[in-house]
């Protein structure tokens, strides 16, 4: 299968500091790829680099086009949806406005139907439609962020720690829904997680990031069997 996203020798950082030291990886079309790593490994920075939110050097090819160096908004319009670190909620706006903003760059008539489809995945959002988004719980904001990113109708969905700050029951629910979305919509997903167990359960392919370098990659199933990963990241 051809790769939807190909990253080659990518460097990225903040100001003077370089965080990513020449990483290369790919995301297959229609699959779930996960990027694992400890705190501070550079997972969030990788996603920010893909979305043009940090200074980069190197090659990023998305759906056949070089997108490195483009503005964030143009990358989003090219079809990359991003559920960012911290969820990126428009706190002052209503839940409904947050959802409409997800589809703001679209011109097609299917937006209403798509929002209704999101209520199928996340019924709780339908109940809170008129509420100020800042008053939602962390889990509800996570659902809102996923729905908002999907409403862009992206070709690729970037997810930055969707399990962060959620109660275990809610984490299971969110991952169950992500699995549905991946299967039902053939959505290509790049998932960043600290919870390696969950991520490897959902993903086909996995990369392991350590202090800005990719140190291991392979099929998710075989990564699970790997002794080193097991000890450091899966904890059994």
């Amino acid at each position: 299968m051809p790769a939807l996203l190909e990253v080659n020798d990518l460097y990225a950082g903040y100001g003077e500091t370089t965080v990513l030291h020449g990483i290369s990886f790919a995301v297959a079309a229609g699959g779930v790829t996960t990027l694992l790593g400890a705190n501070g490994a550079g997972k969030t920075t990788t996603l920010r680099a893909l979305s043009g939110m940090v200074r980069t050097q190197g090659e990023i090819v998305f759906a056949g086009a070089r997108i490195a160096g483009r503005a964030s908004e143009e990358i989003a319009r090219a079809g990359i949806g991003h559920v960012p670190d911290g969820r990126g909620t428009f706190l002052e706006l209503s839940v409904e406005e947050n959802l409409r903003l997800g589809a703001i760059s679209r011109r097609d008539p299917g937006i209403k139907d798509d929002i209704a489809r999101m209520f199928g995945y996340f019924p709780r959002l339908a109940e809170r439609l008129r509420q100020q988004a800042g008053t939602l719980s962390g889990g509800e904001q996570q659902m809102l962020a996923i729905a908002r990113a999907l409403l862009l109708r992206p070709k690729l969905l970037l997810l930055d720690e969707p399990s962060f700050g959620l109660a275990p029951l809610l984490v299971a629910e969110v991952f169950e829904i992500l699995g549905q979305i991946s299967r039902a919509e053939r959505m290509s997903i790049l998932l960043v997680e600290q919870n390696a167990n969950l991520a490897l359960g959902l993903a086909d392919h996995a990369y392991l990031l350590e202090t800005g370098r990719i140190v291991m990659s392979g099929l998710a199933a075989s990564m699970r069997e790997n002794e080193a990963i097991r000890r450091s990241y899966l904890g059994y």
Partner: protein
Amino acid sequence: MQALLHQIFSGIATGGIYASVALALVMIYQATHHVNFAQGEMATFSTYIALTLINYGLSYWLAFLITLVVSFIIGLIIERVLMRPMASAPVLSSVGVFIGLLLIFNSVTGWLFSYTVKAFPSPFPEAMPALGGWVSPHEAGATAVTLIVLLLVYGFFRFTRLGLAMRAAAYNPVSARLVGIRVGWMLALGWGLAAAIGAIAGMMIAPIVFLDPNMMAGILLYAFAGALLGGIDNPLGAVIGGFAVGVIENIAGAYLVGAELKLTLALVIILGVLVLKPAGLLGRAVVSRV
């Protein structure tokens, strides 16, 4: 009683002007967290454009319309050319740019149109018996124009996609970019819109106070007082604050402090709000669980 009511009505009329300028200030404040001190001088400049067009023989409302378009474009260009490079500059240099902009507009206006005080026409009739002498036709008309403008602006931000995109860009530029909003252009549009609103305020106040390059200096102060009173990050609050300052100013000027100290009153309001309730009376604390 008749006199008091009259003071209240004309307070509402000038309050509407303050409310418009306050709204323009808040629009830019929300997007940039800076107060555009040059907002008043930009409006004065626009009013001179209108006067020039009228003197060329254009009808009032055509001149009004062209002035809005030109002001909008000027606002847009200022953001694109002057403010864009300042986006990440320290606060103090931004303040310097705003003050510089104020001085530039002020002196260019004086240089182009001279410093002599000029009369500016009102589009409304000289006398309207139907108003019963409570309020002059121009005051009534200006209030109506202001209310229409405020309603249109409200409708634009509340009900249109572009308005929603502009609000999103102002509140959370990072997230706005991630959904594909061209944040830079939204800022420029905001500047254009603020300049156009200021232009309307200038054209509505000029027949009352006469036109000279410093016409808006005091008005900006009242508008700023109104914006602070209502809450500098709350458009509705700023509008209500603007009206309130207009009424307070008129009543106090007539009964309490006299015309000479009216401007001092604006300063007192500004200081009082900053000391006692910095978020403004209607300042909305963002409810947030994050």
